[in-house]
């Protein structure tokens, strides 16, 4: 936004003709000074009149609120997987004290995960221009000399590397993951979770050091005010082409465009079509009762109709032993309905779908737990994939809306939605709603 390099002063060549020896030395030092003036470490290098502590303070306070919400909703999503329930749910078994807050994820309200994860991902998308503008506003400080004035200053700069690197790491891994572009070095769950804690550690220190100043500056002079000795304000500003207010409006326009083109992926119908640039936005994969969004198609995990043909059986295990059911036997049991959404960790979700099938608590009773099972391990026909097995907690099994669904919206499940049978549990993250179920083991996990 309006940075342009400063013109160097013209060298005084006539001096060197007059006084050869000393003049060359003077000239050399002048040339060195002129070069120093043109380096990014010189305050005059940065010329945008938009920069200044008040501008950075506004963006910083927006990020303070926004990133706090991102962190909290991120921790909620981590808890929603019930990682402390069973190793099959836990992609971070070495979490140690970082799982201190874990709790039994509730089953109500049934849109809970849809809301928390929709907010997490959509807010993350919307905050990208704010983050970029914030980093732009403080970039002269990166090049400021000397690199460290004191031990305290050196530590703070190291902490800022964790802050900036951490913020970019979290936003980039998140954005790549929702686009299913797994370029990052390892499992998304581990990288995004541990990376978030490293980032948040630096974020807390930075907020503790800077928020009082940001509030003070904005209280005293507002956005256009001048701060005495403002280290971010250019000493030689270029002619303004954009006011600070205008620059903020531009950032806000960026957030607004991103909100419009992404929020619709949490809804069905015309709103989803409006989410024209985001994964699982723009279109539905099909039409009709089974036409809603799919996380993993059967083909993508190597399953065909022959895997789930006549030979398919559901094994239900528990104190009553191993019971085997055909699809027709399951259809002959008491069928119940639940209106529940699919809500993915990637931030997209569907509206409530009308599922129909056998209650998990009824199957628990058959397995030998008439008063409720302590837990359930679900296994899929799926041969690979990190969530081909999933554990459900007692409150999830006991909820009367939790089903082994055989149909949806008045039809049988399509192969891509888990034919012949899938789990559907209120408020649970999408991957815990196992598709192509082959075995249910009720008992202590």
């Amino acid at each position: 936004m309006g940075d342009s390099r400063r013109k160097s002063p013209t060298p005084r060549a006539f001096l060197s003709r007059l006084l050869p020896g000393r003049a060359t030395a003077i000239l050399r030092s002048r040339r060195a000074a002129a070069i120093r003036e043109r380096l990014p470490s010189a305050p005059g290098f940065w010329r945008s009149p938009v920069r200044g502590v008040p501008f950075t303070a506004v963006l910083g306070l927006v990020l303070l609120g926004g990133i706090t919400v991102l962190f909290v909703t991120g921790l909620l999503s981590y808890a929603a997987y019930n990682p402390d329930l069973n190793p099959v749910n836990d992609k971070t078994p070495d979490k140690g004290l970082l799982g201190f807050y874990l709790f039994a994820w509730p089953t109500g309200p049934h849109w809970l995960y849809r809301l928390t994860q929709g907010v997490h991902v959509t807010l993350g998308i919307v905050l990208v221009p704010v983050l970029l503008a914030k980093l732009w506003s403080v970039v002269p400080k990166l090049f400021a000399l000397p690199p460290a004035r004191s031990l305290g200053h050196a530590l703070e700069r190291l902490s800022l590397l964790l802050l900036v690197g951490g913020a970019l790491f979290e936003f980039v891994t998140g954005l790549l993951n929702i686009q299913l572009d797994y370029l990052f070095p390892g499992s998304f769950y581990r990288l995004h979770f541990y990376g978030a804690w490293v980032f948040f550690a630096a974020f807390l220190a930075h907020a503790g050091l800077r928020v009082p100043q940001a509030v003070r500056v904005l209280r005293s002079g507002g956005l256009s005010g001048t701060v005495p000795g403002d280290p971010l304000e250019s000493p030689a500003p270029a002619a303004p082409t954009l006011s600070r207010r205008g620059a903020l409006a531009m950032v806000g326009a960026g957030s607004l465009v991103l909100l419009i083109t992404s929020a619709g992926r949490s809804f069905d119908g015309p709103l989803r079509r409006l989410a024209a640039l985001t994964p699982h936005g723009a279109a539905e994969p099909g039409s009709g009762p089974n036409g809603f969004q799919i996380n993993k198609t059967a083909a993508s995990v190597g399953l065909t109709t022959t895997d789930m043909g006549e030979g398919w059986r559901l094994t239900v295990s528990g104190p009553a032993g191993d019971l085997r059911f055909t699809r027709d036997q399951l259809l002959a049991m008491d069928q119940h309905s639940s209106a529940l959404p699919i809500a993915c960790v990637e931030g997209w979700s569907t509206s409530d779908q009308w599922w129909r099938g056998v209650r998990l608590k009824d199957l628990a009773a058959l397995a030998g737990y008439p008063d409720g099972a302590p837990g359930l391990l679900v296994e899929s026909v799926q041969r690979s994939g990190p969530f081909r097995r999933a554990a459900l907690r007692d409150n999830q099994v006991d909820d009367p809306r939790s089903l082994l669904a055989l149909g949806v919206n008045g039809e049988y499940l399509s192969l891509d939605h888990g034919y012949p049978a899938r789990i559907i549990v209120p408020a649970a993250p999408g991957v815990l709603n196992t598709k192509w179920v082959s075995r249910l083991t009720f008992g202590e996990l």
Partner: protein
Amino acid sequence: MKRTDPRILVRRGYGEGPLHLVLMAASFALAAYAGVRLLAGDAFGVIVWFVGAALVHDLVLVPVYGAADRLLCRSAGRRPAAVNFVRVPAFLSGLLLLMWFPLITRKAVHYEPASGLSPDVFLGNWLLITAALFTVSALWLVVRTVRSRRRETNRRPSASH
């Protein structure tokens, strides 16, 4: 014997106040606790990504868009007020491309098989959104120019009087 305030001692040796020291210590301790877990797998890869993200942003992305902006300002020449009518739509379009390039450029090869959705729509949608942004901006500029010209002609005293 003269006793010195411990706060002054901290400031002399450390360069900042005691609160700064406490915050830094707490922050680094927590970051290290999570950091050893973050580095438990591909440590080198994670460090490259963590530090590389900051370096690529500060040394590539910022200079590139800064240079593009300088070029734009220079080419606007005598009409600096028109700069924002190019700057804002270009910023919005570039932002969308930066964030969704794996989908727009069809680099996200897992997307179609996993979701059953075609990624082909994204390039077209991005181009349409870009076209719409520049069109709105151009119309805005035309309306503004016509208005300010009209104001000027109204203000000018007419010659026939």
